[in-house]
């Protein structure tokens, strides 16, 4: 009884208007802010999936992100996921038609869980990722919405279970406490979710070193690790991460 399913390494690209932001320190790219160039670059390094986050997510920018996904999907043949302000079936349909494999739903999943139910029935669970921003509160975690600005006063684990039940195919689990600290993922949070839910967990928030990624995939039991700054600022390439994981006996696609 073996499971050879590889652990996934997913770089996150923050998109603002037509550009990827944070990606300014690439040296061997002609245009570091161009989403298509960056997507190709990560693909060549061995990214298992690309996660686009539309950080402006306004109506006029929706067309821009759809256009970006179309262009990337024409040239990069790995799964693409898109998140940021998604709150309607129509938007989900447009993004999937543009070539995205998955969409991730955050605030809207809290405010209107029916969207998750309806979307997974229409497009299949595999296309619907629920993105949870979790913050520690004593011995548990609470859900934050609106990009981490507002406490929704909902227990994160209970919310995750409910999302699985109504059709979420994966959980993108972001630790607000660890996000941006480079001190490592919230291992306990990921472990709890992975043990209590039966859908894949994508860990996010806190990666600063190779050991952090290893830890969250082993002790944290996450199925995938998402990171932004360590890749953007070229501290490590995706291939560095995968070689390190492989050396540590973790199944990765190399």
């Amino acid at each position, binding site marked *: *009884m*073996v*499971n*050879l*399913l*590889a652990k*996934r390494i997913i770089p996150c690209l923050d998109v603002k208007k037509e550009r990827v932001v944070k990606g300014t320190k690439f040296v061997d790219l002609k245009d570091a802010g161009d989403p298509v160039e960056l997507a190709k670059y990560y*693909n060549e390094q061995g990214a*298992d999936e690309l996660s686009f986050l539309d950080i402006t997510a306004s109506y006029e920018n929706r067309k821009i992100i759809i256009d970006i996904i179309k262009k990337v999907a024409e040239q990069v*043949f*790995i*799964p693409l996921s898109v998140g940021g302000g998604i709150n309607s079936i129509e938007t989900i349909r447009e993004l999937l038609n543009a070539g995205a*494999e998955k969409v991730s739903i955050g605030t809207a999943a809290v405010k209107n869980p029916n969207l998750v139910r309806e979307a997974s029935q229409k497009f*299949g*669970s*595999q*296309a619907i990722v629920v993105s949870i921003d979790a913050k520690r509160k004593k011995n548990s975690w609470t859900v934050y919405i609106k990009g981490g600005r507002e406490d929704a006063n909902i227990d994160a684990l209970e919310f995750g279970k409910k999302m699985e039940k109504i059709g979420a*195919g*994966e959980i993108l689990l972001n630790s607000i406490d660890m996000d941006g600290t480079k001190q490592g993922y919230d291992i306990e949070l990921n472990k709890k979710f992975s043990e209590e839910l*039966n*859908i*894949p967990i994508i860990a996010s928030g806190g990666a600063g070193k190779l050991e952090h990624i290893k830890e969250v995939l082993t002790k944290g039991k996450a*199925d*995938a690790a998402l990171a932004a700054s360590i890749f953007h600022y070229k501290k490590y390439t995706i291939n560095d991460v995968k070689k390190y994981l492989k050396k540590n006996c973790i199944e990765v*696609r190399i």
Partner: protein
Amino acid sequence: MGEDSIITSDLKEILNADKVVFPGVGNFGDVMKELKKRKLDVIIKKAIEMKKPFLGICVGLQVLFEESEESPNVKGLGIFKGKVLKFKQGKVPQIGWNKISSKTIGDGYVYFVNSYYAAPDDKNIIESTSDYYAKFTAAVKKDNVFATQFHPEKSGEFGLRILKKWLTC
């Protein structure tokens, strides 16, 4: 990929095509219902009978079999004998990159999104297998019919090689 292609459910266009691709993500029962509604079930069988090279992807593989645990009262196309079964262990759906071993298309990592897999009666049609807590069918091949449980179109360079080979050979 440098080939002319059209997306169609038009019967004449399908029967005039040199090669036919039937991709799909979805529920076995829903897909069969939709195929019947548009008479595509008959057309697909006809295209296969006419020996057109046929590529099924994901649910496009599953409906080639007789039945599925996903939709117990729905009959599949029955091109191949056997059943489609649900994974009994692990997180379901399986989402991600898993390794295949193949007779002719090569070995490597490909992208899967599936809760179900085919169990053909005739083991000789199994082209590739993979492991998800147990061995399962990743692709089948017989005469002009080739079908993959994984998504070659999302499987990076290796996936593209598989598609190119199918298109050109």
